[in-house]
């Protein structure tokens, strides 16, 4: 039985050999654990039936066969996760059904406290450096290419092709933009389970009192500016009472959304070739999947692009006119507090803030969400989240089973309870889900993807950590007016070029 659980290197050859060995042993019935064998048999059965019903198998040139037995008895899956999305109770709730399917398996979550994703990856990498690598790691767009590009994670292509029948309903439920964000050089590394697009959260109490109770998602930057300016309040001594707008100096949801709507970006964008197998297998009839590729490539910095300068000048103007405070670096705990105590009228946030504001004690009618205002376009930015399968994982077959288990509707219902993130599966966004937390306009979350097919992930090359440090550093200097905006972007560009020239 030992051969089964030690698939160290994940290659097709290994896979076949192990699968073969597993099959032989299974027939011998030496270690015959009926319960362990059952689920695999089921997977095999569904694969077979999919062939019968005539599912498209075009681009899948190589199909690996499922191992006859997935060893679960005595196996432990270690999963590193950001913060803790689940309380002990909900965590157990997603693990229990999995253990029922794979008896004897243990699943351990390693919650890691971090300020942002870059900080989280830092700590996962520290664990890796110390020889304590998890089997699965929850990774957001910010880190996908670090894990994929540096060979920390393995591609899921072979598994996806093998289990395509089982996964068809999942992909049908997930927008292609989200899937594409999880690809790197033609291969898929994660099944997105959730995402957050940078929408505009509005404090309806503050805006309502100022007479803005009917803001439409179809609004422009100029309208945004007018509203923000009018709701900003100071007392006689110049002490601010309400800011029209506030943001945090970070990559996701910093001032990057303003670049996006103005047609700019921090890095050049192009699509890697490849990935056609995926689009043809799962998105054949979906018009939104047209012209997709094998993942994003962010090869060259273009920080001082004129569109970016214009965007930075705009947010700088907001601060200079006292409409927005100087943005802080960091986690956003104070922003949450200020927004909830009606000191801030509008801010950038995603679906995760529905649960966040509820936790901050805000009534579900006191806030709402709109699309980001239009400038040259209404192209949003988003970040998506999924599990990567680590190269060092000892039992990859079992880990893959967990990975699939985690994106089922049943699991997502459990761990996305309380709306601390936006589900990647559109069928999970419904009135019932948002009835307790709000916002009233929850449709905006998925409409961001559906109505703006050009919406794209934040730029996150393998050097995302260094890139983010440089980006926030010069943004901070410009916003504190310690450097003119143009000079800050030029310096940012110069530093970024040094990082990307090393390749």
């Amino acid at each position, binding site marked *: 039985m030992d051969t089964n659980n030690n698939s160290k290197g994940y290659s097709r050859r290994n896979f076949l050999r192990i699968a073969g060995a597993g099959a032989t042993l299974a027939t011998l019935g030496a270690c015959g654990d009926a319960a362990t064998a059952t689920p695999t048999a089921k997977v095999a059965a569904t694969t077979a039936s999919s062939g019968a019903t005539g599912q498209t198998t075009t681009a899948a040139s190589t199909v690996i066969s499922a191992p006859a037995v997935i060893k679960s008895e005595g196996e432990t899956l270690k999963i590193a996760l950001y913060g803790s999305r689940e309380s002990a109770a909900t965590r157990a709730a997603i693990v229990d059904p999995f253990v029922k399917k794979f008896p004897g398996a243990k699943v351990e979550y390693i919650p890691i406290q971090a300020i942002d994703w870059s900080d989280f990856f830092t700590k996962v990498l520290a664990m*890796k450096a110390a020889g304590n690598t998890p089997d699965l790691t929850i990774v957001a767009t910010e880190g996908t290419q670090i894990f994929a590009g540096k060979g920390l994670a393995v591609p899921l292509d072979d598994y996806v092709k093998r289990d395509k029948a089982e996964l068809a309903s999942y992909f049908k439920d997930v927008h292609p933009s989200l899937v594409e964000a999880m690809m790197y050089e033609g291969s898929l590394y994660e099944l997105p389970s959730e995402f957050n697009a940078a929408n505009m959260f509005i404090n309806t109490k503050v805006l309502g009192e100022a007479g803005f109770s009917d803001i439409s998602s179809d609004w422009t930057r100029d309208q945004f500016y007018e509203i923000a300016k009018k709701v900003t309040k100071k007392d006689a001594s110049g002490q601010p009472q309400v800011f029209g707008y506030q943001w945090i100096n970070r990559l996701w949801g910093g001032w990057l959304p303003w670049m996006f709507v103005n047609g700019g970006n921090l890095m050049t964008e192009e699509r890697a070739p490849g990935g056609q197998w995926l689009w043809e297998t799962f998105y054949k009839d979906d018009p939104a999947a047209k012209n997709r590729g094998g993942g994003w490539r962010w090869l060259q910095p273009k920080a001082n692009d004129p569109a970016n300068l214009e965007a930075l000048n705009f947010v700088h103007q907001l601060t200079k006119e006292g409409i927005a405070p100087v943005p802080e670096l960091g986690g956003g705990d104070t922003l949450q507090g200020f927004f909830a105590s009606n000191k801030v009228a509008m801010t950038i946030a995603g679906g995760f803030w529905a649960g966040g504001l509820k936790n901050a004690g805000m009534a579900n009618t006191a806030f709402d969400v709109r699309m980001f205002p239009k400038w040259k376009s209404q192209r949003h930015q988003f970040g998506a989240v999924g599990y990567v399968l680590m190269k060092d994982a000892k039992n990859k077959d079992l880990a893959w089973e967990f990975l699939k288990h985690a994106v089922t509707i049943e699991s997502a219902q459990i761990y996305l309870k309380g709306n601390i993130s936006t589900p990647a599966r559109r069928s999970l966004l419904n009135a019932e889900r948002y009835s307790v937390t709000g916002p009233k306009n929850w449709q905006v979350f998925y409409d961001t993807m559906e109505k703006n097919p050009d919406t794209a992930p934040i730029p996150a090359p393998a050097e995302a950590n260094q890139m983010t440090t440089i980006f926030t550093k010069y943004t901070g200097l410009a916003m504190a007016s310690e450097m003119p905006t143009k000079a800050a972007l030029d310096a940012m560009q110069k530093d970024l070029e040094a990082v990307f020239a090393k390749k």
Partner: protein
Amino acid sequence: MQVAKPTGPGLLKRPYNWIQEDSLAGMARRKALMGYIFLVPTMFGLMVFTVGPVFVSFALSLFSWNVIDPPEFIGVENYSRLLKDEVVITSFSNTAIFVFLTVSLQMTLALLLALAIQQKIARWLRYTYRTAFFIPLLTSSAAIAIVMAYMFNKDFGPINYYLGMVGIPRVSWLSSSQVVLITIVLTYVWQHLGFTLIVFTGGLGNMSKDVQEAADVDGASGLRRLWHITLPMLSPTILFAAVVGVISALQIFDQPYVLTRGGPGDSSRTVVMVIFEAAFKNLQIGYGSAIAVILFLVILLVTAFQFWLSKRWVFYQ
């Protein structure tokens, strides 16, 4: 005063040899042996868990290693690189300024507070004061980050609010290069004052009451007494507090990391932050180790200097 009873003739009756010789020399030898034996646990632990890893770190500083691929030997390249790295140089000067401000503020405040608390006041009051100063030391850095981000917030923070009431315009505590280091100093001193205070109260408590009372009777004025009696008597404690203060301040990491993340620009980036960022964020373990080695050498020099200085005025009874 407790003194042990004589323990019988056992020791003296054994055959003489170099270690049991009943002479001054034998006594010195016994004491020396005892010294080595007493050092065993500490030396063993430090060798295995600190000194060994330090040598590994030093070795790593000669490599280029990104954790994922095998390390590559590059000699002193990491060192020549860091001498030209502006961020590293800035971080060293930030840290130097930080250490100077922190230690002088912390020592002065703690000494004054310790003197005040040691006055003739009710016991419970003394306890209460000391506990109050110790509480920040007990709280976790992550929580302090949230609380302090609010306290120092430019627009809605309590500090600027109260400053505003006395007519001082709002200060950009967290977003101005000129001010941010001061903010970090204040946060750090706020958190660590209790430590220095407890060390000083311990030192003052240990001090002879006779000397104090004699000075009282002689009517030495407060300042004179402080300068001529209290400070010299307290000098070993002051040395201790200064050395420990400098060493821990040189390693500052938590406060800027959670409050400002080194910004704006690099104005609050410290050496350990740069080590951490190089090693773990940018996956340049070798480079990070090289900076760590330099930091180690700097601390060594500073401490040697402090001890040299101490020989000149620290007074042991």
